[in-house]
């Protein structure tokens, strides 16, 4: 089966994560599970990729983290999108539309 190359998707991991955070704050595994479900098992994000993205996004001020206890008593780090993060997400969406439009022109069967 054809797999997604991590080089290709790399530039859009941030966008994928922010997509979920636009809705509500979430934590690592939940996001990873949602990505899997949303992509119908076509994209499994690696743990290190996910965590690296969190660190990068946080450093850039696009997300903030806080700690909260889940129903089962486990402490988790939750991530929350910032205003700058929302703006960045919109920009990335625009960028993707353009990219997709351009690449599509060179794809043939």
């Amino acid at each position, binding site marked *: 089966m054809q797999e997604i190359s991590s080089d290709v998707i790399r530039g859009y991991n941030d966008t994928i994560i922010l997509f979920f955070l636009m809705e509500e704050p979430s934590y690592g*595994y939940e996001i990873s599970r949602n990505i899997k479900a949303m992509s119908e098992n076509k994209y499994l994000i*690696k*743990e290190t990729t996910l*965590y*690296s993205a969190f*660190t990068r996004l946080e450093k850039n001020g696009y997300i903030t983290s806080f700690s909260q206890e889940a129903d089962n008593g486990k402490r*988790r*780090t939750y991530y929350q999108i910032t205003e700058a993060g929302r703006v960045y997400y919109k920009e990335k969406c625009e960028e993707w539309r353009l990219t997709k439009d351009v690449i599509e022109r060179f794809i043939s069967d």
Partner: protein
Amino acid sequence: METIKNYLETMFANLPDTEETRRAKSELFSMMEDKYNELKAQGMAENAIVGTIITEFGNIDELKESLDLGKRDTIVPVVSEPVQTVATIENVTYESEGKRMLTIDEANDYVMDNSLSTFIFGLGVFFCILSPAGPVLFSAFEDIFGSNAFTNFLSSFGVGFLFLSVAIGVGLILLSGTKRKGWEFLDQDNCGLEIETEQFVKKELEENNSSQHFMFALGVMCCICSVIPVSVLGAMRIKVLSSAVGPSLIFVLVGIGVFFILNSSRKVSAYEKLLSLNNNPEA
């Protein structure tokens, strides 16, 4: 789960032991644990679960890059570097021979025992401070109503109260010491906190900080306010209030105040004690 933990330890063995890498390790562990629990709930076999988690873990170099560790490794060709790496491996893995690692549950137990002990100690001190209130309150009736069988009985009751209260107080103070038994190994043995425990303790410490200040302030306020009843009731010209109830209330309020002040730091000091275990590197 143990296999996964070891896998993660191995992955991090070559990274320096910093706040950032600890946080990364703890976060990654948390995600892997979530995944483990879900796959387990789906009825997957242990081996298959471990296999899946390790395949989906990814690449540690990617993590190094995002933590700004990758560049330093390659660019800085300092001679002393290898020595430092050896030292950090020992620190990061926490598996050094004979080092006693505390789990979250143990840390919780320690904090509970410690605060219970402080609570009992505080109660003991409260009773000791309270004890003079007995004679002060009950002997005043003799002054007010003159000496008769009933007021004499009250006076001796007051003295009895003094002794009883001191006895209870001392008993509680002695009892408080026993609650600390069983934790001496923290000072004697070489102990440390597991990474998750450390995160947990730090968070608890933060959360308890404000309540500490609040309790301390309350205690100080009680001590300061202890003179108010005497002056207010003294001005009321009702003899029972001004010479019996007022003065004895000083002891009650000071007792409560000291109790709060002693108890204010009961949790925070335990958390700080736990964190200090990791900060003193083994001698």
